[in-house]
């Protein structure tokens, strides 16, 4: 056991030795240690380098407020976590961590030259230089800045760990399991309702864990704690959640809780998810988040060995570690005395207590005297020395405003400090509760709540343990008061922004934000340069923007700024607290939404067949659709040529199940469709279909699809694949809010029906044997007809429609029969060389016919006129959604992009989709573009390429030559009609 371990103190288990490594060196610690406590037990103070000046830095705090001691936590190459606080890492056997931000080593860091040159790097220096020569910014300066910046190592491999998330509800959520939080939880447990008590630490108890000599209701604190926790643990309505950080407090009492499940376990014992995000709604929230001790600001306050007094006290009382053998104390607050006395009582030499106040409570003086501790009131610390650890401090007497330049140098191996306490109002502020300034404690405390929340204990500025516990109990509806010896003085002059010094303040480095290397003079410089808002000062100096988010630095920075501005603190304001409270793993926030669960992949009931038959898929909206079915090493081009030809020559089979489908039912169904679609519906006969065009109220094409009338009061509406949810929502919106009087109802039936499209001259022959009760002859069942019938004995809806220009049928059967029917038809179709085809051929075939695809040939700015679809507009209809917009001046003006066909002069040239079109080829950049190619394919059927395009005034330009400038050539093409194949539609009626 090292000389710094005090085996009689602390909650660590001296019988359980633990071996761990830091920077490759092996040390011994104890079960219950954090990395910080174990390193200190081994006499190691130097653990990191600061962000900007690469100054040697030690351990400053004992909890999540730590700003200096950041390490890379190493659980294997893919499990290195940068920037972890040594003070919150729980030790286990085989634990490994490395120091950061140094090269070649922590002890000898080349970049520490920055510290020597720090005069040239004041706040905002980068705004003032690196501008010449201009080209150097990208090539020289910025890469150099980036290389030296950053803290921890960047990740190298994909994280193999799992994360989890859930939703939780409770009546009472208590954040912070210190004395106030536990008192609240006990009262809440009695009251009933679900209670959740969370604490960021591995062990519940908060400040009680560092206060073994405290008595509560006559019991030693640790006994009381154990009993209370046992009681809570046994209560059915209470959930205790250690290692859980309330990261943010959002609208309507919704909080995110990040629970760390495995980082404290040896690697081989870690099972299940690494972290879990609990998304919690609480009826009431009790915040018992405590307070954070403030450092003092003086020259050399960042040296390893300089730390918060409460941290030294915690290391001793909770971890059994002496942070030094000869410790100096500098304080402006009473609380540091208790720390000093605890240390002294553990036989650690207290070199001196320096109190910057002239007057100190008599009890403290007496207690110091009793222990023989030298107490210097009305003194200041003006310097510290020691390269990698503090070796001495210089103290000077303060007379009024004057500091006696004659200093006295005292040796020590640690310096502990206290500048008062800052209530942790982070979550309260996330919830938009207001704050008020309290001069007596020089801090902001909660004022008015915005949610059903209450702050109790130190986070409310109530520092006595007894008062805090009573407040906690009361907040949870209890009335228990606690018998607690609470007479220890607790006042302090937190209002001094910087310890007085005789030295030139523009030359000394007195740190405010330790991690970001922001000094008091940086803040003064910012004010001098006109940065007068605290948000400006924060951004200009970066104070409070380090990974601790200013937990220890915000108020010191604020007070220095206020003093420089000559204004009281409340008038300077406070920067906004932003979630999360402590840094939170992306993986936890992503929760279960990884891999297959990242987003929905919708598959049709026939998808499995396509997969088994080698389909190449493409995502379309949330669906995945078979794009083509390559055979024997075919590429897409070859497969598409084959599938298309087979369909036109004989028979193709296509899975159209993804098309959106809506059943529109009710006596007003036709009237409703009249209003929603451009086309007229009243006269559409039962058993007939019509193509429908839907506009947004802005007049642009929104969706299209075939609509069949099954009965007077029943329509089967189809939509585009991606548009289905939008179309249904759009319809519901109008129906519910504009026309609630209409007797019509909408039901999504997309998933009810599997849809198998059969196209080609042999389509009828194939299906005839399977269809019952329908005369499939063209006279009885013409193009654009629909029947309810049975197919293979199953209730089906049979459409005679065609998106290919060939004789076509679409068989709708209930989805769970989809695959079976497909297989039946496929087997029967062998005699016709039936060929499955995918979306790519579907696109080619329809383009040969000049049918548009909404979203490809239209882009949200295309009207029916632009698309050449005036025929789809019911001329006699007084109104439909979008009609009025079609009459706006710029919609009817000349120069609109209109849909045309293109034929390239060289028939082999296939234009690129998205290629731009110009009228005259010899232009310089920027060219005047008149349109673009929307669809373009090689047509195997026609033996030449075809394209659709939107071209300005294109409808009047048939026969004209246009040009498509490509990077390496100028392609000529002629504007033609949009129908390339079978202009008379004869193929639809083959027998």
């Amino acid at each position: 056991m090292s000389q710094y371990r005090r085996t009689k103190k602390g909650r660590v288990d001296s019988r359980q030795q633990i071996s761990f490594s830091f920077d490759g060196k092996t040390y011994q610690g104890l079960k219950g240690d954090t990395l910080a406590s174990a390193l200190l037990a081994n006499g190691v103070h130097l653990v990191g380098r600061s962000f900007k000046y690469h100054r040697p830095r030690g351990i400053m705090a004992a909890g999540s407020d730590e700003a200096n001691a950041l390490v890379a936590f190493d659980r294997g190459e893919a499990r290195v976590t940068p920037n972890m606080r040594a003070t919150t890492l729980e030790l286990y056997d085989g634990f490994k961590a490395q120091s950061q931000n140094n090269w070649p080593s922590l002890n000898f860091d080349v970049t520490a030259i920055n510290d020597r040159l720090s005069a040239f790097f004041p706040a905002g220096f980068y705004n003032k230089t690196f501008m010449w020569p201009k080209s150097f910014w990208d090539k020289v300066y910025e890469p150099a800045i980036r290389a030296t910046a950053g803290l921890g190592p960047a990740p190298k491999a994909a994280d193999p760990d799992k994360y989890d998330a859930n939703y939780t509800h409770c009546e009472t959520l208590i954040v912070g399991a210190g004395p106030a939080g536990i008192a609240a939880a006990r009262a809440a447990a009695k009251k009933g309702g679900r209670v959740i008590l969370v604490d960021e630490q591995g062990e519940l108890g908060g400040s009680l864990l560092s206060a073994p000599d405290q008595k509560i209701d006559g019991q030693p604190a640790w006994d009381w704690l154990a009993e209370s926790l046992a009681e809570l643990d046994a209560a059915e309505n209470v959930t205790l959640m250690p290692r859980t950080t309330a990261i943010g407090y959002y609208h309507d009492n919704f909080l995110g809780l990040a629970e760390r499940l495995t980082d404290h376990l040896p690697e081989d014992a870690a099972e299940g998810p690494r972290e879990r995000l609990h998304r919690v709604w609480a009826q009431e929230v009790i915040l018992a988040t405590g307070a954070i001790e403030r450092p003092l600001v003086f020259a050399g306050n960042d040296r390893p060995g300089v730390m918060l007094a409460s941290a030294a006290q915690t290391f001793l009382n909770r971890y059994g570690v002496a942070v030094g053998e000869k410790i100096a104390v500098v304080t402006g607050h009473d609380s540091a005395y208790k720390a000093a006395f605890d240390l002294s009582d553990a036989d650690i030499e207290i070199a001196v207590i320096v109190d910057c106040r002239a007057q100190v409570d008599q009890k403290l003086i007496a207690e110091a005297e009793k222990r023989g501790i030298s107490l210097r009131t009305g003194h200041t610390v003006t310097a510290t020395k020691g390269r990698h650890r503090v070796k001495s401090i210089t103290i000077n007497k303060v007379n009024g405003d004057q500091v006696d330049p004659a200093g006295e140098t005292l040796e020590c191996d640690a310096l502990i400090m206290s500048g008062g306490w800052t209530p942790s109002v982070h979550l309260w502020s996330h919830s938009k509760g207001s704050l008020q300034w309290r001069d007596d404690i020089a801090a902001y405390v909660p004022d008015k709540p915005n949610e059903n929340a209450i702050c109790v204990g130190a986070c409310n500025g109530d520092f006595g343990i007894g008062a805090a516990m009573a407040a906690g109990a009361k907040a949870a509806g209890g009335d228990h008061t606690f018998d607690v010896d609470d007479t220890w003085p607790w006042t302090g002059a937190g209002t001094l922004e910087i310890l007085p010094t005789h030295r030139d303040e523009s030359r000394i480095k007195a740190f405010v934000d330790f991690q970001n290397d922001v000094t008091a003079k940086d803040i003064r410089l910012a004010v001098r340069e006109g940065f007068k808002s605290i948000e400006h000062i924060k951004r200009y100096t970066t104070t409070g923007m380090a990974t601790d988010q200013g937990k220890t630095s915000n108020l010191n920075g604020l007070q220095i700024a206020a003093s420089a501005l000559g204004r009281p603190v409340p008038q300077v304001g406070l920067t906004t607290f932003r979630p999360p409270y402590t840094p939170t793993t992306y993986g936890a926030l992503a929760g279960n939404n990884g891999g297959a669960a990242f987003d929905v992949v919708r598959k049709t009931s026939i998808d499995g067949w396509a997969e088994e038959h080698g389909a190449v898929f493409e995502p379309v909206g949330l669906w995945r659709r078979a794009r083509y079915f390559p055979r024997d090493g075919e590429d897409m081009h070859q497969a598409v040529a084959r599938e298309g030809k087979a369909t036109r020559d004989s028979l193709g089979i296509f899975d159209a199940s993804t098309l959106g489908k809506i059943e529109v039912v009710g006596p007003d169904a036709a009237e409703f469709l009249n209003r929603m679609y451009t086309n007229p519906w009243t006269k559409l006969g039962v058993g007939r279909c019509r193509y429908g065009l839907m506009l947004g109220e802005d007049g642009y094409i929104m969706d299209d699809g075939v609509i069949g009338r099954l009965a007077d009061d029943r329509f089967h509406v189809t939509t585009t694949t991606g548009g289905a949810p939008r179309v249904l929502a759009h319809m519901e919106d109008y129906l519910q809010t504009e026309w609630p009087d209409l007797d019509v109802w909408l039901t999504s039936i997309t998933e009810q029906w599997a849809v198998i499209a059969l196209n080609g001259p042999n389509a009828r022959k194939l299906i005839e044997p399977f269809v019952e009760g329908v005369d499939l002859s063209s006279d009885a069942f013409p193009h654009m007809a629909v029947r309810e019938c049975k197919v293979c004995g199953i209730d089906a809806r049979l459409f005679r429609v065609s998106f290919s220009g060939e004789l076509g049928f679409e068989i709708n059967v209930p989805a769970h029969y989809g695959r079976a029917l497909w297989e039946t038809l496929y087997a029967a179709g062998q005699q016709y060389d039936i060929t499955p085809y995918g979306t790519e051929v579907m696109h080619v075939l329809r383009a040969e016919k000049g049918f548009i695809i909404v979203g490809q040939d239209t882009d949200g700015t295309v009207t029916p006129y632009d698309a050449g679809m005036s025929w789809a507009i019911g001329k006699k209809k007084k109104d439909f959604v979008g009609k009025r917009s079609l009459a706006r001046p710029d919609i009817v003006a000349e120069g609109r992009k209109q849909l045309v066909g293109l034929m390239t002069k060289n028939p082999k040239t296939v234009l690129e989709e998205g290629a731009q079109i110009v009228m005259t080829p010899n232009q310089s950049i920027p060219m005047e573009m008149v349109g673009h190619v929307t669809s373009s394919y090689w047509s195997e059927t026609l033996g030449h390429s075809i394209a659709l395009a939107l071209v300005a005034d294109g409808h009047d330009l048939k026969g004209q030559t246009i040009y498509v400038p490509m990077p390496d050539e100028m392609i000529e093409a002629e504007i033609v009609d949009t129908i390339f194949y079978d202009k008379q539609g004869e193929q639809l009626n083959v027998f």
Partner: protein
Amino acid sequence: MFSDADSGSLKLDQGVHIGDCLRLPDQRFDLNLVDERSRFCLRVRETHVSAFAKASGLALPTQVGTTRQDENALIMCLSPDEWLIIAASESKDLIKRKTDQFKSAPFSLVDVSHRNVAFTLRGEGAAAMVNVGCPLDLDLKAFPVGKCTRTIFERAEIILYRPAETEFHIEVWRSFAPYVLSVLSNGAQAQ
């Protein structure tokens, strides 16, 4: 040539398979696929509900979020004018016949039997599993036995119904089922 082209010839396949990861031995829940059912979406104006119930003999629950189970069907009231009727697969015509008895006002009955598949989650851990992706409060006070509702499960819409204290019935559109299973599976492995 296909003489057996009758109702017996096509195999029915709900297309959903519950992975092994959801059958871990020490799970505090059990997940099962509900077999084939008839399902209807019924829409009747609020003003006609009682007349409809009387005429059809279908006992429609009238409070949103409540269910009624009788010998014919399980009926969930999802909205003041919307019900999901779940019946045995062979009861399809029965339900149609019953609703056809109502003639005094328009309504809408649409067959959605294959639109959904359904799971049951049973066991002590069932509620926690639902809360992996569903944000509702499943405490018995907030979500009592018999309650049903449409809600959300991460990115999928579901209908959640609680037939018993430790049992949930989840209806989901068939193509969203694998996604729901993926999230449940991630959650199950994390329990």
